Each structure stands twice: as structure tokens, then as C-alpha cells.
């Protein structure tokens, strides 16, 4: 049987290209994702681990949950790691100890504008524990010297001015309120750059500059207590013992901390960073699995069409003695060989793609760390396994159908299985069996907002729907056929008849297009709804574009009018404010309350829901949660002799307590303007936005020097553009699956025309002209493609909305936006694509002489 199988592949290889292509693309995608994810992890691990290369043991103090800075030395009240150092050094096995500390300073590099916030890390005193690689110069060896990372933009020999806050005692760690009485004043010193450290490959290198200085200098610049102790052991010392001894020292000193080997610590640090890459990889693999799923559908379709064309050969095999099992094994063997070959190619493509992406990423200094490619064996094996498995699984159903070919079919024309036959009923049963649970799962996933449940549900129900639709397609085509019969003339009537005469072929052709249209529509509808919902959510979170606020004096009333005249400011509304005390069920707190003219504010604010209604006061959701406040709970305000009680209205936006202007004036009839809200025109460029904000700031500062202008619009626009990019990426990724489906369409249509050589030849012999034959094939394609497009659009809309709902479940309200024009365009394009795909085969069919076509 093998010989026959191999010979089949060799002879009909061309017809398998579409399936191969589908697998290559899908496997390539998956492999690229896996390889990139691995490479990113490897890069991170290597970079993070660089620090611990020569370290045998690390002491990391446990910082309690209340500590505000994650790396702020040991827990308050406990001795600092510094005190441990002399005792550790005494251990026999210890060769060197380094106490790593950090300081956070502002650095002004000559030639750059504005100072940057940088971290200054201490260098190990002992050479053995110095891990920094230099690309220029040397490491500092006394105070007043620094080595910088490339990000800092400084050269060796530059003088940098460092602004820092001298160290605070460990009883008061963390937040220093600028302007509060107990805070120390900042000082400025100068430091000389003596070296540049090579941090390439470090994922955190790009975020801000890293400086390195001696431990004394770090302390001098307000450095924290050591965040870890790195210990190098003597050659030949037993690391396990060392760790035990150090651990007992740590416990003995009353420090709560962990002692790990250098490698373990590196792995720990890396794992927190790689968490992000794992999330990204999961995200990409979701699309990878969709691509694989679609590829599977395309392959199943292609194989069933191919096998239908080989009925006579299969029958002959059965005649000369091939058992059903041998036939099935032959078909599956073909699938396995094709799948494996295509997968191997796909693995190559995937690795190549990963290499390209990696090269681009490392050239561009992206936040995603990609150094050299890391290609573990499992990625290759996974790619091969997935591709081969999917191909074989997809060929299972067609192979079963192939075994049902009766040997007699070699001797006389095939009887088409009527849909009412047992086979048809079985399909119906399986279709329902897949569809109903799948749909239920999908609804469950959407309701609880878990995409990882909704997605398999969608796939399962899609499979079931496909089987069911295949039964629906022929009758629908028949119906549609009656519509075109009139205007289309003879070819159209013949086309309608043709399409209904062979339900299997019609269904197979339509299926390929159905898959593509469903995907595309799902994508469009899902993306549109996501966009609109996310935009509305964004508006609710940042309803005000610009807020001008003061905290210590009133804003002159004329400022609002002035600001309204600024170019590109659409509207402005002034808020009155007063100091009051508020109580909710418990302690009375001093607060500042604001009152806004509800009528005027409607135009200025982007989300009406973020305004209080009459008798309400807005409370930030986060604040409400911490105070145990629910929507509608009463809040009482007191100011001098006035009391006002309002009901709370929870919002996602501002922290301020905003009520209606009338209510505030009741509280304090002499309240002045405390804030101005401004709305900026839509669709401005980033430069225009900056200009508007600058002008507003200028005008406001002239009126009130201590004014604070916050341009939330920048944040909103930034998030908006990230959303755009995200949607584009998602579209691109799903587009891959659409491409796979389109390959299936072209292939199936071409094959279906070839399959009917004899029929077409007969019709030509009986008097159908070439033009009429081309017209007939075009009408048929139009009919089938049109029906498939409409059905696909319906199915795609359902799935797209379900997908969007599952993804957006965290927002309060999912807005459904149905992009009618785009969907209509899909129907038109899909139908046209179907017709176009049949043009070439139709031309070939028309050109063949009738006799040649009818001969076998």
C-alpha cells in the first residue's frame, strides 16, 4: 500500500499544495511564537543572571508587606545587612562579600535638557564580585566618580550634577512629602564619569539610566541600606555548607531573610520579569491556535474534495483486494507524509520569522528583550507534532468516507449519497452534538468573562455549525438559484441546477469560503465592538481633557472665559469649591468639595455618567471601596453652620468629590472658583495638543502663579493609540488565519471545476457555447459564494460579538457596534473572490474540446 500512497503523492502533489501551505503558515506562526518567547526568556535570564555569575550565595532580606519601596533594605526594626558583613567575612569558606545598595537621584547630564531619575548602584569592593562589563573606561574607585550605562547619554570625562536627598533614618522609610516640615532639603553634587558599562541584553537597561558608584558614594547620596549580600566562596568550598552557615548567622542576627545560591536568586529575579513574556506568548498562542484550527478545516475540506475525485481509483483498489483498513491507512499515510513535510517547512519558516523579528527588535531597542535566538528542541518537536497531527486528524473523516467507496464504483458512475441517508443523519447528529455543548461553553465563557473558556467553546460550536451548515447550504442554494434563474438566462438556470444536483460538491466548495468569511466578519465585528466599548471606558476614566486647579487660592472668575478663547479649546466650565468636613458612617475627615454647573458641564465632560446628578456627589470607586461605600450611600458635608447630605455616585474618574453647583453654594454661599475643566477639540495631533496645554498653562500661570494644570488628554490619547496598535496587531494575527482560509477557497473552487470535466465536455458537445460555459461556471460560483458569504457573515457576527464580550467582560458595559458597511463590503468582496477564483479554471474548461473532456 505504501508504494501506492507514495505514488499518489508524487502524481497529485500539486493538488496538495494548498493543504501544505495552510500547515506551513500555521506551524510557522506557532513555532515563531515559541522561539521568540524562549529567546526573550533566555535573554532576560542571562541579563539578570549576569549579576550573579560569580556569586555562590545571596542573602535577601524579607521585606514586609507594608514596606513602600520594594528594595528598601531589611524590614523596619531589624538590623541592617551591613551588620552581618563582618561576621560573614569571618567564615572560612567565604572569599568575599559585597553589600549591594542603591540610591535614587536626579542626574543632569551636560548637553541634555531636563534631569533624569536614575538609580545609582554600589559596586562590589572585592574584584571577585564585580560583574559589570565595561565598554569604555573603568569602574569608579572613590567618591565623586560614577560609571554610567549607555542609556545615560554621557561620555567618559563628562561632569554630571547629581541632586539627591540625604538618607533618612530607617524608622521612617519611604514617602517623603515634598514641602512637609520634616523632610530634608535636596543637595546637589558633581560627579565625573569614568566609565561606560555595557548593559546590552538587559531588559531594564532601556527604561532609565543606571549609574554605578562606590559604596561610600552611594551612601553619601542617600543610599538605602543594602538590599542584598552577595557572597563568593573560596575555591573548593562546599556551597551547601556555606549556605547553612550563613543562614544561621542571619537568624542569629535577628534578620528575617532568605539565603539562596546565586543561580536560585537569578532564577527568582528572572521569573518576575519573564512573567510578562509568558503572558505575551499566551496571547500570541491563542491566535496561533486559531490559525491551526482554520488550517485543519481547510485540510479536511481539501482532502474530502481530492478523495471524491479519486473515487474510481479507490474503487479499483477495493476491487483488486485492498481492504477498507488498507485504503484508510493509505489516505492517512498520505496525510501524515504531507503533514510532516509541510510541518518541517513550517518549522523552518517559523525560525526564520523569529530571526527576522529578533533582528529588528534588537536593532530598535524595544522593550521586549531579544538577544540571540534560543531554539530549544521542544519548539521544533512541537511544531512538527502539531502540524502532522492536525493534518492526520483533519484527514480522518475524509478517509472514512473514502473507505465506503464500493468496488462497483469503478465499473459504473457513482450514486450520490442522498442527504436523507444514514450517513446524512449521522452527520446531523454529530453536528448537533458538537454545536450545542460548544455553544453552551461559549455562552458560559462570555458570561463569566474568561476568554480561555469562551474560545474552545467557540471552536467546538464552529465545528458543529460547519457540519450543520453543510446540510443547510444545498437547500439555500436551491432557493437562491430560483432567484437568479430569471435574470441570468440559460447559463444561470443551468448553474442553479448544477449547484443543487451535487450537494456534496456544493457544500465542499461553500465550506472553504464560509470559513474565511466567518473569520473575517468575526474579526471586524469583534474589533468594532471592542473599539467602541474601550473608547467609552476610556472616556469614563478620563472624562476631562484638562483640569486647571489650585489648592491655596481662588481662581479669578475671568480665567475660564479667557481660556475658552484659546485655539482648539471647545468648552470650559468653572467649578466652585470649598473646604468642608465629610462623614460617611464614621470618622469625620477634612476634605475639599467641588460644585459644578450640571447643565454647562455636560458639554465639557466626555462621559455624562462621570457627573453627579442633582443631589449626588461623585466618589472615586477605589476610594469608595476602601471606605466601604456603595452607590447611593449618604455622605454628609459640613461647612461652618451648613450641612448638606448627598448620595454617593461612584465613578472611575477623578478623586475629587464633586456635587452640583447649587448644593455646594448651599454649603458655602461664598465659595469661589477652585477648578476649571476644559475640553479640547477631537482629532488633534500630538503637537497641537501640547500647544493647547502649553497655552492654557501660560494663561493660567499668569492669573494664578501656583496653579496646577494637568493634561489628562495626553494620557487618554496615549492609551487610545496603544489600543489602535493592539487592534491592528490582532487584526494582523487573525489575518493570517484568513489567508489560510482563502488558500482553501481558491483550491476547492479550482478542484471542483476540474472534477467536472466530463460533465462540462458533455454540455459543450450538446451545444453550450464557450461563452455560455464560462457564464455557467461564473453563475455557479456567484451563487455558491454568495450563499456562503451571507451565511458566513451571520455566523461571524455571532462569534465576533461573543469573542468581544468575553474579552471585554471587565468593563462595565459592553457596547455592540455592528459595522454594517464593512460587513456588506465583506459579502461583496467574498462573492467576488469566489467568482474570480473560478475564472481561470472556467477558461481552461471552456477551452478543452468536448471530446477530450469526455474521454477519460
Amino acid at each position: 500500500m505504501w508504494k501506492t500512497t507514495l505514488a499518489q503523492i508524487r502524481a497529485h502533489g500539486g493538488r496538495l499544495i494548498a493543504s501544505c501551505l495552510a500547515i506551513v503558515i500555521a506551524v510557522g506562526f506557532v513555532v515563531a511564537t515559541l522561539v521568540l518567547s524562549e529567546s526573550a526568556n533566555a535573554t532576560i535570564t542571562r541579563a539578570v543572571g549576569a549579576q550573579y555569575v560569580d556569586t555562590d550565595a545571596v542573602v535577601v532580606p524579607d521585606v514586609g508587606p507594608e514596606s513602600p519601596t520594594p528594595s528598601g533594605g531589611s524590614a523596619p526594626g531589624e538590623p541592617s545587612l551591613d551588620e552581618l558583613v563582618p561576621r560573614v567575612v569571618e567564615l572560612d569558606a567565604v572569599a568575599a562579600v559585597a553589600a549591594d545598595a542603591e540610591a535614587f537621584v536626579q542626574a543632569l547630564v551636560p548637553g541634555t535638557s531636563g534631569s533624569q531619575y536614575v538609580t545609582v548602584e554600589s559596586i562590589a569592593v572585592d574584584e571577585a564580585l564585580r560583574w559589570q562589563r565595561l565598554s569604555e573606561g573603568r569602574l569608579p574607585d572613590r567618591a565623586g566618580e560614577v560609571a554610567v550605562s549607555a542609556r545615560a547619554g554621557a561620555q567618559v570625562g563628562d561632569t554630571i550634577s547629581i541632586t539627591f536627598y540625604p538618607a533618612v533614618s530607617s524608622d521612617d522609610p519611604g514617602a517623603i512629602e515634598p514641602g512637609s516640615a520634616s523632610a530634608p532639603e535636596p543637595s546637589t553634587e558633581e560627579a565625573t564619569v569614568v566609565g561606560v558599562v555595557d548593559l546590552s541584553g538587559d531588559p531594564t537597561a532601556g527604561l532609565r539610566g543606571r549609574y554605578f558608584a562606590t559604596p561610600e558614594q552611594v551612601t553619601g547620596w542617600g543610599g538605602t541600606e543594602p538590599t542584598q549580600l552577595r557572597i563568593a566562596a573560596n575555591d573548593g568550598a562546599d556551597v551547601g555548607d556555606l549556605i547553612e552557615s550563613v543562614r544561621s548567622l542571619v537568624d542569629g542576627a535577628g534578620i528575617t531573610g532568605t539565603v539562596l545560591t546565586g543561580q536560585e536568586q537569578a532564577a527568582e529575579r528572572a521569573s518576575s520579569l519573564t512573567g510578562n513574556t509568558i503572558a505575551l506568548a499566551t496571547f500570541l498562542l491563542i491566535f496561533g491556535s486559531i490559525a491551526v484550527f482554520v488550517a485543519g478545516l481547510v485540510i479536511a475540506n481539501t482532502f474530502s474534495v481530492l478523495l471524491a475525485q479519486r473515487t474510481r481509483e479507490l474503487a479499483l483498489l477495493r476491487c483488486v483486494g485492498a481492504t477498507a483498513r488498507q485504503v484508510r491507512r493509505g489516505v492517512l499515510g498520505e496525510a501524515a507524509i504531507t503533514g510532516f513535510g509541510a510541518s518541517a517547512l513550517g518549522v523552518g519558516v517559523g525560525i526564520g520569522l523569529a530571526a527576522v523579528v529578533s533582528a529588528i527588535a534588537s536593532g530598535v531597542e524595544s522593550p521586549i528583550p531579544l538577544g540571540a535566538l534560543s531554539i530549544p528542541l521542544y519548539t521544533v518537536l512541537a511544531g512538527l507534532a502539531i502540524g502532522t497531527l492536525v493534518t492526520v486528524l483533519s484527514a480522518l473523516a475524509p478517509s472514512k468516507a473514502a473507505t465506503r467507496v464500493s468496488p462497483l464504483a469503478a465499473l459504473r458512475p457513482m450514486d450520490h449519497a442522498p442527504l436523507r441517508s444514514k450517513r446524512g443523519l449521522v452527520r446531523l447528529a454529530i453536528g448537533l452534538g458538537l454545536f450545542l455543548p460548544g455553544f453552551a461553553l461559549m455562552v458560559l465563557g462570555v458570561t463569566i468573562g474568561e476568554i480561555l473558556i469562551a474560545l474552545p467553546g467557540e471552536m467546538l460550536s464552529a465545528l458543529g455549525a460547519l457540519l450543520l451548515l453543510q446540510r443547510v447550504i444545498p437547500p439555500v442554494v436551491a432557493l437562491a438559484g430560483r432567484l437568479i434563474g430569471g435574470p441570468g438566462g440559460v447559463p444561470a438556470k443551468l448553474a442553479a441546477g448544477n449547484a443543487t444536483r451535487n450537494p456534496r460538491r456544493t457544500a465542499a466548495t461553500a465550506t472553504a469560503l464560509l470559513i474565511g468569511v466567518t473569520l473575517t466578519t468575526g474579526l471586524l465585528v469583534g474589533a468594532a465592538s471592542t473599539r467602541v466599548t474601550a473608547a467609552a471606558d476610556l472616556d469614563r476614566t478620563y472624562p476631562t481633557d484638562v483640569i486647571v486647579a489650585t489648592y491655596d487660592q481662588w481662581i479669578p472668575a475671568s480665567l475660564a472665559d479667557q481660556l475658552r478663547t484659546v485655539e482648539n479649546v471647545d468648552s470650559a466650565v468653572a467649578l466652585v469649591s470649598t473646604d468642608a468636613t465629610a462623614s460617611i458612617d464614621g470618622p469625620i475627615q477634612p476634605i475639599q468639595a467641588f460644585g459644578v454647573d450640571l447643565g454647562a458641564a455636560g458639554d465639557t465632560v466626555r462621559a455624562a455618567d462621570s457627573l453627579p446628578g442633582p443631589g449626588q456627589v461623585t466618589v472615586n470607586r477605589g476610594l469608595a471601596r476602601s471606605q466601604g461605600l456603595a452607590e447611593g450611600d449618604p455622605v454628609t458635608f459640613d461647612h461652618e453652620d451648613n450641612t448638606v447630605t448627598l448620595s454617593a455616585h461612584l465613578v472611575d474618574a477623578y478623586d475629587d468629590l464633586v456635587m452640583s453647583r447649587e448644593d455646594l453654594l448651599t454649603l458655602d454661599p461664598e465659595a469661589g472658583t477652585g477648578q476649571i475643566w476644559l475640553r479640547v477639540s477631537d482629532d488633534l495631533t500630538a503637537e497641537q495638543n501640547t500647544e493647547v496645554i502649553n497655552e492654557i498653562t501660560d494663561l493660567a500661570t499668569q492669573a494664578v502663579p501656583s496653579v496646577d494644570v494637568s493634561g489628562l488628554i495626553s494620557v487618554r490619547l496615549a492609551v487610545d493609540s496603544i489600543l489602535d496598535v493592539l487592534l491592528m496587531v490582532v487584526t494582523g494575527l487573525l489575518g493570517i488565519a484568513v489567508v489560510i482560509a482563502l488558500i482553501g477557497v481558491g483550491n476547492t473552487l479550482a478542484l471542483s471545476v476540474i472534477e467536472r470535466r466530463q460533465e462540462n465536455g458533455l454540455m459543450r458537445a450538446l451545444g453550450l457555447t464557450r461563452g455560455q460555459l464560462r457564464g455557467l461556471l461564473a453563475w455557479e460560483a456567484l451563487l455558491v459564494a454568495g450563499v456562503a458569504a451571507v451565511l458566513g457573515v451571520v455566523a461571524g457576527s455571532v462569534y465576533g460579538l461573543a469573542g468581544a464580550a468575553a474579552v471585554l467582560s471587565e468593563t462595565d458595559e459592553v457596547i455592540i457596534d455592528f459595522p454594517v458597511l464593512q460587513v456588506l463590503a465583506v459579502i461583496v468582496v467574498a462573492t467576488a473572490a469566489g467568482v474570480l477564483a473560478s475564472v481561470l479554471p472556467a477558461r481552461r474548461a471552456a477551452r478543452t474540446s468536448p471530446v477530450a473532456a469526455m474521454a477519460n
Partner: protein
Amino acid sequence: MSHPASYPTPSEHARAQSPAAVRSLALTKTYGRGEASVTALDGVEVAFARGAFTAIMGPSGSGKSTLMHCLAGLDTPSSGQVWLGDTELTALRDTELTTLRRERIGFVFQAFNLLPVLDARANMVLPMELAGASPDPAWTDAVVARLGLADRLTHRPHELSGGQQQRVAVARALLPRPDVIFADEPTGNLDSRSGAEVLGLLRSSVRETGQTVVMVTHDPIAASYADRVVLLGDGRLVGELSDPTADDVIDALRRLELGGSIAGPSSNGGR
């Protein structure tokens, strides 16, 4: 081209079985249901002798193809039995029937005999390969030589003429030395010279190696190559001829079509 008797004939123990290579008992086949039902075979009882070349003839619609399909185990009758030697075909399931087709039954069809993807040699040994058996090289060479295919073995079917394709089909049928070779209109698509070649090859295989051949044909000339001709009409056995010439067959057919029986004179007189 004749190598008399130096090659084993269908085995002795097969001969020791019933003298009929294949026979049927009360074979009936109906298609369709109710008013649309068609009776293709109506209680046909026929036996085909071993080592003989038998032709089944009849006008269109007489059921001759259906009879052959049932005898070969390709189709299941509505009622009745078919015996291949001592094996009852009608009692076997599909897999067992299939196994039988590899080793004990050979086929030659009118058209589409060969797999287009395999070359001549591969097509020839296909049934034996499916059985997992390897053909006896000496026997293979002999068959190839007898059929004049030695220089065509590596060619694909589309590179062979019609006659050559049929010869490959005959070789495929001969190779496993089956109990019976069924030939369904084997010369229908061939010109008279190629047709004569193929028929001659079939007959010589019967003469020289004792192969049993059952051929369905509508061509009187082809039928004349047979030792015995069995005539079917409307699904029933209506007569038989022994060692007929082509003219004998034509006469018999004419009488059949005119509604008479073979034995008696026609009611319309000769024409």
C-alpha cells in the same frame, strides 16, 4: 509464446473440490422499491467449469453484468447463494471478500483497469502486494514474456496504448493464479487487432495453464473464443451454446431478441 505444462496449474486440491469453479443457486437481485423496483436477476442457477473459457452473453438489460458482479463478490444478491469452489461468497463479510479478491479472483474490466499513478509492473503486482505476498519471479517473467510486456514495465498507463493497458490488466489477473478470472467486456474499447490479441491471450491461458475464465461480452466474435456461451435474457438463463462460431452466436442472439427460445424456430422466419 506457449510454454506448455511446465508451470503449475490451478492447484490440484482445487481440482479435487467441486468441478465448478464458481456457481450460483437461485440468484436474485432486485433494485429499487415498490413500483420502481427492477428485477435484474431472477433466480439464476448457473455453474462454470474449471479450466474452461465461458462467455456470458445477452442483450442490454439482460442482467449479464449484474450476474458477473454477484459471482465475483462485488455485489450482494437480494437472495440466493454464490459458491467459489467450496467457499460460499454470499456468507462472507466485506473484509473476507476483499481478501478473496486478492488471491482467488482476478479482474479485467472494459476501461479504467489500471491505477494511473503506478507503472505497469507495479500495477501488475498490486493485488499480491496488498496480500503481502511476493510474486514468484519465474512465473512473473513467464507471464510478462507471454504478454509481450517486457519493454513496457516501467511505463505509466497514459504512456501505453489501449491494447497494452489491457494486456497489463490480464497479466495482473494471471499473476496470483486465481480460481477464476472475471473479464467484463475486456475488448469493448479496443480495435479489432488489439482485441483479438487480448482474447487470444485469455484463451491460451486457459489452454496452457488450465486457468478458468468467465467473460461477459456483447460481441459475438469475442464470444466465439469461448468454450461455452451462456445466454441471459431478462434476468434469466435462456440457453447455452457449446464451442460456437461467431455466426452461431449471432443467430442465437437474434432469436432471443425476436422473442423465441434458442431451441425452437423463430416465429418470424430467418432474416
